[in-house]
């Protein structure tokens, strides 16, 4: 046991500067490149393990990992046609929500990471620009006002997500206009996002009070759930969320620069105003996509980037890939817990993320909080 703990400690020491002896004279860049590769390998490994566990366990019972893998490969190779019961269950029920959970977990974590760097505030989460309130307001408006045009009946699965994306981007647009009108500082964005969020939440509350009997379709969305995910919208979440997350990583050095403050970043040659505006739009679009299909899931976007900073230090070239991986793994685990803990009922996944993450984060805060000038 001591040997295992020692190995884990040495392994972690290799990932964090504070744990590397000061007289270790190796190249810092070489060490970071190595850490990046380790993060990728560990990330792929743990994501694959969580993915397999996720499709193996459900409210109906547990299938051995090897059987789950065999059924998965068989179902995929058949292209979803002529499947036996187990293959059908995995392919049609568990796989889409698992795929969506990866996209949403990664997307929310990296959006949180981007916003925390852009606003340089540790209390910021992906919903800081009012995206979740705008999305929620529009989604509920659609349900309450009964917008189910017959011409759109084939696309009824997409009406709420589409309304949510429009609402999220509308809220962000208003926040952007107000914040830029006030000077465009980080504080302006926080204040503008907060008041816009309040405004949309108020409208949402009015809608809820108008028609409280017809809200079953939307309650899942308010608290976050993967229950309504189908193959079509699973890929609509996964592909853009992962693509945007990975593309954003190319600007990791600029995010590092941003942490020194806007004046310093500007003075070092970054066009701060343009970078901030573009990245705010990117992070808000990413958040809107995540929120649109699975609702408002808190905690991941706030805490995963902090956890990665505590584990790995302040370099976004390591924090961003680690956030993608850790966000995806936490979301897979939270979705698993949400659907099996009181099966056959499901609990909101947003509640699970917070319940799992809070004690873990509190422990990390106690252990590393003194070193962490958050």
């Amino acid at each position, binding site marked *: 046991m001591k040997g295992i703990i020692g190995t884990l400690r040495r392994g972690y020491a290799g990932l964090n*500067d*504070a744990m*590397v002896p*000061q007289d270790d004279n190796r*190249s*810092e*860049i070489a060490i*970071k*490149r190595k850490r990046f590769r380790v993060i990728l390998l560990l990330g792929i490994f743990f994501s694959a393990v969580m993915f397999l566990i996720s499709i193996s366990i459900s409210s109906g019972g547990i299938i051995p990992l090897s059987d789950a893998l065999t059924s998965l490969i068989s179902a995929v190779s058949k292209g979803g046609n002529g499947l036996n019961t187990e293959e059908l269950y995995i392919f049609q029920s568990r796989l889409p929500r698992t795929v969506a959970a990866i996209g949403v977990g990664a997307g929310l974590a990296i959006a949180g990471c981007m916003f*925390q760097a852009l606003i*340089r505030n*540790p209390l910021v989460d992906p919903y800081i620009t009012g995206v979740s309130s705008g999305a929620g307001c529009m989604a509920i408006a659609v349900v309450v006002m009964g917008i189910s045009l017959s011409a759109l009946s084939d696309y009824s699965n997409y009406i709420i997500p589409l309304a949510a994306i429009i609402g999220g981007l509308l809220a962000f647009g208003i926040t952007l206009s107000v914040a830029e009108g006030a000077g465009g500082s980080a504080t302006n964005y926080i204040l503008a996002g907060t008041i816009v969020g309040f405004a949309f939440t108020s409208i949402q509350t009015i809608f809820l009070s108008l028609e409280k009997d017809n809200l079953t379709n939307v309650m899942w969305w308010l608290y976050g759930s993967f229950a309504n995910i189908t193959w079509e919208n699973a890929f609509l979440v996964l592909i853009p969320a992962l693509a945007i997350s990975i593309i954003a990583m*190319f600007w*990791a*050095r600029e995010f*590092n*620069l941003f*942490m*020194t*403050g806007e*004046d*310093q970043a*500007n*003075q*070092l*040659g*970054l*066009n701060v105003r343009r970078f901030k505006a573009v990245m705010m739009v990117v992070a808000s679009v990413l958040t809107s996509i995540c929120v649109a299909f699975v609702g408002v899931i808190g905690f991941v976007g706030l805490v995963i980037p*902090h956890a990665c*900073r*505590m584990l*790995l*230090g*302040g*370099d976004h*070239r390591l924090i961003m890939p680690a956030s993608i991986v850790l966000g995806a793994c936490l979301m897979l685990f939270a979705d698993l817990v949400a659907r099996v803990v009181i099966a056959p009922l499901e609990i909101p996944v947003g509640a699970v993320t917070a319940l799992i993450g809070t004690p873990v984060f509190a422990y990390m805060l106690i252990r590393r909080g003194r*070193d*962490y*000038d*958050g």
Partner: protein
Amino acid sequence: MTDDSLLRIRDLRISFGDFEALHGIDLDIPKGLLVGLIGPNGCGKSTMMKCISKLHKTWTGEISIDGDSTRDMRPIDIAKMVANVPAEPPQMFGTTLMDLVMLGRYPFVNKVWWESPEDEKAVREALQVFGLDHYRRKQVSLLSSGEKQRALIAKAYVQQPKLMLVDEPTSHLDMKYKLEVMEYLQNMARSDMTVMVAEHDISLMARYCDICIIMKKGSIVTVGDPKKVITEDLIREIYEVDARVGLDLDGEIYVLPKRYIRG
């Protein structure tokens, strides 16, 4: 403009709303000098430095560095000539000293992600120059005020600028660190880098700077050798304070404020 002028400013003006903060500044600063910028709060010291590094962009007039006008320069090109040391260290979550100083290489790194071995070598050399190499893996938040200030100067140093602008570098430091920071700045000026320091400690400025620029209400009052320009009359004029200005036993100027003159 003289041949050895590094910084040339002509008729520099900037307004914020109806308030004109700088009223037509003219200035020539030669290469390789430690230049002190002295004046009361709000006299335009920081504003002038922000105009030079183009953090303020709405100024009128002309600023040129080593003969090149900064008017149409991109931020990245300015960054290769001018470095800026802020008064306050930034709050950085989990960032190490090495990471912070490495950011000074940003204008020169062409690769998308990783700095080159040459960049790392330049940073390690700077850390050794400033006595920080042993702390390179320490988090910035855990450094002392003096170490943080040295780290910020080291970050500016690895930018290899022709002109370094330093805003109130000793405001949070004790006597030892004040002298230490000023000696580092003086050594950089001796190595052909021009260093402009805005500071309130006039005795410290007078002791270390080659020339002093005295400002009041957005204008330059006088420029010259500190031993010649810093007088009791000048202190009274710009600060509205009675002060004793004298030479100590080593022949260094000291300024001792006595009382402020009631309006």
